[in-house]
C-alpha cells in the first residue's frame, strides 16, 4: 500500500508548518461556526426562567436542571426519541437495501430506459411535499395506517430514495467494472456479486447514504406531523413542536429539547465516521 504522501514531505519545512497551522486555524473557525448556535442553546437550556432574556451576562450566574427535568421526565420526548429511532432505522434499512439494488442495476446491468427511471425517481424529490401530503395522508387513512410507525417509516424511505439511489449509482459506477465481471465469471449471480463484491467496496458511499437517510428521517417534520396522532407514534421533531402553548413558548425547555433531540444523531455520526473515512486506504483496489 502506498504510504500517505504527508510522510514523504521533508520534515520541518516552514511552508509545511504554515500550511498545517493554517489548517488548524481554519478548522477552529469552522468548529466555532458549527457549534456556536448549539452552544448558545446549551447555555439557554440551563438558565433559570427569570434569566432567560438577560444579556449580559452570557453565562448565567446559577444553572438549573429544571428544563431538562421537564423535558425528560415531564414530557413524552423520550418516547418520541424512541419512535424516531425506530422510524429512522427502518427508513434507512429499506432505503439503503432497495436503493443499492436499484443503483447497482442502473450502474452495471443492461436495462433499458435508465434515464427515465432515474428521472422519475428524482421527480419524487422535486415535488413540494405540501401538495403531496394531502393525497398521501388520505391513502394512508384508507389503508388504516394513519398513526402507525410503519407508514411513516415507509414514507421516509421513499422520499429519501432519490438521494440514496443517485449517490449509490455514482459510487458503484466509479468502481472498476472488471470487479463485477470477474465475479460473474466466477459463477456469481448478479445479486451475489452485488452483495459480496460490490457493496463492501462501496462502503464510504453506503455509509454516507445511510447517514443522510437517517438524518433526513430523523429531522422530517411535515409527514411526521400529519401521519402520526398520538404519543405512542409521535417522532422527535413533532414532540418538540408540541412544546409551545398557544402564545407562550417555554424557551428554556425548548432549548433543552432541541439538544436532547440532536444528540442521538451526533452519536450515530461517530459510529458512521469510521465507515465514511475508510475510503480507499482500507478497501483499496489492488492492481
Amino acid at each position, binding site marked *: 500500500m502506498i504510504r*500517505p*504522501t*504527508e510522510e514523504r514531505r521533508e520534515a520541518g519545512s516552514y511552508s509545511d508548518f504554515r500550511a498545517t497551522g493554517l489548517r488548524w486555524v481554519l*478548522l477552529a473557525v*469552522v*468548529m466555532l461556526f*458549527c457549534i456556536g*448556535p*448549539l452552544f*448558545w442553546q446549551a447555555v*439557554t437550556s440551563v438558565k433559570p426562567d427569570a434569566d432567560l*432574556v438577560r*444579556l449580559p451576562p*452570557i453565562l448565567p450566574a446559577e444553572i438549573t436542571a429544571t428544563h431538562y427535568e421537564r423535558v425528560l421526565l415531564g414530557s413524552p420526548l423520550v418516547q418520541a426519541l424512541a419512535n424516531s429511532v425506530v422510524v429512522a432505522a427502518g427508513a434507512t434499512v429499506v432505503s439503503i437495501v432497495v436503493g443499492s*439494488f*436499484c443503483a447497482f442495476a442502473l450502474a452495471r*446491468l*443492461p*436495462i433499458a430506459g435508465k434515464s427515465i*427511471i432515474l428521472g*422519475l*425517481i*428524482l421527480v*419524487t424529490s*422535486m*415535488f*413540494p411535499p*405540501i*401538495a*403531496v*401530503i*394531502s*393525497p*398521501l395522508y388520505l391513502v394512508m387513512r384508507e389503508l388504516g395506517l394513519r398513526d402507525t410507525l410503519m407508514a411513516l417509516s*415507509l414514507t421516509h424511505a*421513499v422520499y429519501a*430514495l*432519490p438521494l440514496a439511489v*443517485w*449517490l449509490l449509482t455514482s*459510487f458503484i459506477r466509479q468502481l472498476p467494472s472488471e470487479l463485477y465481471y470477474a465475479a460473474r465469471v466466477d*459463477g456469481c*449471480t448478479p445479486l*451475489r456479486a452485488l452483495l459480496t463484491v460490490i457493496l463492501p467496496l462501496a462502503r*464510504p458511499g453506503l455509509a454516507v447514504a445511510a*447517514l443522510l437517510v437517517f*438524518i433526513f428521517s430523523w429531522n422530517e*417534520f411535515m409527514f411526521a406531523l400529519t401521519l402520526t396522532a398520538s404519543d405512542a407514534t409521535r417522532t422527535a421533531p413533532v414532540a418538540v*413542536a408540541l412544546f409551545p402553548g398557544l402564545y407562550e413558548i417555554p424557551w428554556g425547555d425548548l432549548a433543552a*429539547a*432541541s439538544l436532547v*433531540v*440532536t444528540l442521538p*444523531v*451526533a452519536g450515530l455520526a461517530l459510529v458512521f*465516521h469510521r465507515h*465514511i*473515512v475508510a475510503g*480507499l*486506504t482500507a478497501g483499496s483496489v489492488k492492481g
Partner: protein
Amino acid sequence: MVPRRTSMTGAAMRRTLSEKSWGYVLAAPAFILVGCLALAPIAAALWLSLRHRLPILAVDEFVGAANYLDLLSDDRFWAACRTTLYFTVLSVTIELVLGLGLALLLHGLTRRPSPSARIAQVVTILPWAVPTVVSAQIWLWLYQPDYGLLNYLLRQAGVVAASVDWLADPDWAIHAAIAMDVWKTTPFAALLLLAGLKAVPEDLYDAARIDGAGWWERFRMITLPLLMPIILITLVFRTMDAVRVFDAVYVLTGGGPGNATETLSIYAYKTLFQSLQFGYGSALATAMFVIAAALSTMYLLLLRRHLREVP
C-alpha cells in the same frame, strides 16, 4: 470468501436469469415503492391542479389549464419566484463553496485516524442533525434585537452601534434566512463531497506530485474532474431542497415583512391550507416542481461533458 467454481455450460446459463432480467428485478422494488407512495400522490396533486377546488364554496370542477393561466398573470407568484430563485442561487452557491472547503479540510485531517479527526467530523455534522423546525427556533432566538446573541456580540465587538433588526428589515430578512440555511446545510454538502474526495485514488496525487504539479494544479486537474459527479449530485439535490424551502423561512419571518421573504412554498402553503384553494395551490406546487426540474436539467446538461459516463 472464495466463490465456488462452477462451469457454466450453455444449458446452465440459459436456466439462470439474464443480466437484463436481473436488472429489472433489482430495480423493481425501488420503482414500486416510489410509484405507490410518491408518484401516485404527485399524480393526484397534478390532477387537482387542473381543477377548481374550493371546499368552502363546495366548488369542484375541472377547468383545464385555467389555474396555470391565472398563475402567469399573478404578481404575487412572480414575486415569490424571484425570492425563491434569489434564495436558491445564493444559498446553494455558498453551501457548495463552503462545503468543498470544509470537505478538503476534513479530508486532510482524516488521512490518519485520530480522535481530533473524529470529533471534527462529528461536530461538523451537528448543524445538519438538528431538525429544521428546531434550528429555525434557535436562529429566531439568535436574531432577536434585545436578547439575541448575534446582536450582543456585534455590539460588544463594536461592529454596530445599535442592534440590527435582522428579520424586521425587508431587505435583510431574506439574507438572515439564507445565513440560517447555510449554517444548517453546509455539512450536508461537505459530507457528500468528503465521500467523493475519499474515492479519489491517492496514487493519482502522488504521480502528479512527482511530475511537479502544485496544489492548485492537482486540485484542478485531478480532484475537480473526479469530483464532478458528486458535485453534480450535491448541486441537484441542494437546489431541489432550496426551491422547496419552507420551515426555515416560515418560522423566521412567516413570509414577511410585507411579503419580502415569501417563497413559493410559503405562498403555496398559505393558498392550500389557509385560503383553502386546493386547485390553485396544487398549480403553485407544480410550478415549483417545474422550476426545480428546469434547474436540475440545466445542471445536468451543462456539466454533462464533465461526467465520464452520462446517465
